[in-house]
């Protein structure tokens, strides 16, 4: 039996939708003003011309040509993506087991464990970078211990001011960030499902690979995106821990804005990096999707 739709029912429905969406207006305005707006400004700057320390509204794509074809910038972007990919892989390999253990192995302690992870995010980012300088430096905790117990005669100088230091610090900073979405996803996995799979003869690895991982894949994808974006865009960690070699994209962009004052090129580099990051994240999601099947 069909139900007759009253006349004007479509308009009423639309009005109700508008009224229902009105509370979203502040958030939408905030999003437009502080995310979309600056991005638009960045895009506009990226097609400006830079001449004699002036930013001239003479539209050109030369900045993008330089960002994409200049060998030094290409090397910087590829290095950045490589480091970010490596850090993301290590972070996921650490964050997932941690979240799994916190959720299913110590269910009664999981909120405490989760809180301990959160607490690490409360500290100043810069303070944590300097803490790693203290740990990894020539007279830092690691070298002092190794020299003190007689394992080495001279401090190991390559711990700090190296890509290794950048990788260690970024991993340390980003594991808590990755734990958050993975842990949240695991809350929606009923332990009964895992138990049922074990009852049906699945081994521990099969339970994780075949049941837990597919069900938590949305959280893993979000964690991968968070981690990759943060690692690719960081410039403070490489600047303070990475030494003189191998600049990353964040530092190159910062230099264009703050030192050479070539804002149009800096904006083009930033947009290029955004595009590259989006492409790589798409690839990561595809791979994770295949793994999670």
């Amino acid at each position: 039996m069909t139900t007759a739709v009253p006349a004007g029912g479509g308009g009423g429905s639309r009005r109700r939708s508008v009224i229902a969406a009105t509370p979203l207006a502040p958030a939408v305005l905030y999003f437009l003003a502080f995310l979309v707006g600056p991005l638009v400004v960045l895009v506009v700057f990226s097609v400006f011309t830079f001449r004699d320390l002036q930013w001239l509204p003479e539209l050109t794509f030369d900045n993008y040509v330089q960002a994409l074809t200049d060998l030094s910038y290409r090397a910087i972007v590829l290095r950045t993506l490589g480091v970010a990919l490596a850090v993301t892989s290590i972070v996921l390999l650490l964050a997932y087991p941690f979240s799994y253990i916190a959720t299913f192995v110590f269910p009664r302690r999981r909120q405490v464990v989760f809180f301990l992870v959160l607490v690490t995010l409360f500290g100043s980012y810069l303070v944590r970078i300097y803490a790693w300088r203290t740990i990894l430096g020539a007279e830092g905790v690691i070298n002092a211990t190794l020299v003190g117990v007689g394992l080495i005669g001279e401090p190991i100088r390559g711990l700090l001011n190296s890509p290794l230091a950048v990788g260690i610090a970024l991993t340390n900073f980003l594991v808590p960030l990755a734990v958050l979405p993975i842990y949240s996803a695991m809350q929606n996995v009923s332990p009964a499902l895992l138990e049922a799979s074990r009852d049906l003869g699945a081994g521990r690895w099969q339970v994780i690979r075949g049941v837990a991982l597919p069900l938590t894949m949305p959280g893993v994808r979000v964690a991968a995106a968070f981690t990759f974006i943060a690692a690719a865009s960081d410039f403070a960690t490489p600047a303070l821990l990475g030494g003189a070699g191998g600049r990353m994209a964040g530092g190159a962009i910062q230099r264009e804005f703050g030192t050479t004052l070539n804002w149009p090129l800096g904006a083009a580099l930033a947009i290029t990096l955004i595009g590259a990051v989006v492409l790589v994240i798409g690839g990561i999601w595809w791979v994770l999707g295949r793994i999670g099947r």
Partner: protein
Amino acid sequence: MDRRSTRIAALGSEADLRRRAMLDRRDFLRLGAGAAVAVAASGLLMDRAMAQSPSAAAGSPATQEFAGTTLDLIGLAGEDGKVELEQWRSDRGVTLATSPFSSWDETFAKLKTDTFDLALVANPYVSLWGKAGVLTPLDLSRLTNWESMFPALKEADFLRDEAGNVYAVPIAWGDGPYIYVPERVPTPPTSITDLLDPAWKGRLVTWDDPLLIFHQLAVAKGYPSPNLTTEQLADIQADARTIVSHLVAFNSSYEDATDYMVRGEADLAIGGWEAMVNQAAAKGTTLDFSFFTEAHGGGWSDSLAIPTNAVDVDAAYAYIDAMISPEVNAQVATNLVSGTVNSLSVPMVDPSALIYDYGIVESTTSPIKFEAWTPPLGAPDGMATKADWDAAWAEIRAG
């Protein structure tokens, strides 16, 4: 009913408890409005607190010529006259609001986007920023202490554009030493080209800026820095790449460079400052300074300028004039361990800060020239521009 049950009954049902514990919408809006007002008020209070207020006991009413004026200055802590001109500000009713910056280069961007009454500018940048239109040509007749300034500073090219307009007034100067750890560097190098030796690998720190390295290498090779051909720039770039490969890291400040040497992670800082010796001594490490042959073409001088969008121009001129007055500039030189710019100030500088050869600034033909090392913005074909220098450095930094 026992006492406990009576108390529980008085509290009401569980639903009542839960309702009272939760904020209702009206309470939430009230709290939110109150919080917003509190945050805004605290922000305003903090803003005012950060400004240097005139002391409660204001000076003579007759000298409150700039009463109510706030001078917004972008500069380095210690070179803003915060300490040295405290009484001067109190006497005139001036408040100083200093905005610090982490590098000279970021100042330009801030000068283009924000409003300041005074800006501290290093010698490589004065004429460049003047030509870029962010600094005002100065009326030197408004500076009563200008004439007693040392000749090498007063007549310096770095303050001027081709038309002779002066864009800034020096308030301090120094020479261009490198700082090293004598315990680990028994034989200090004499030329920057000595640092090309592989023995220096992993022992150097310097600034993330091509000007100093390129300029000194150019002088070492006899090239007319900063007006280089593209071939000369390429030649310098190759040597600069070697020096950069010998770096431990790029320092972000003089203190940062000192800390690298104090921690034993570096043995020599290119582009140092004598005050680093004192900083390290306070941390129990002995440092010393020396000069590359080429650095005697590279003294430093920090100057105060008036940005083109300055609001309180009259107060800005008065502030600059006060900073270069004999008594005040002697105090500036003492506090900064720098050279004083006023020839009448020297007897008043504390002996501990009299570490510079004042013969450098007493003549316009002195060996240290406070040059503008920045390459030209535009140049004929075959000549290297600032963009070429930046691109060459970006290639080195890309690894």
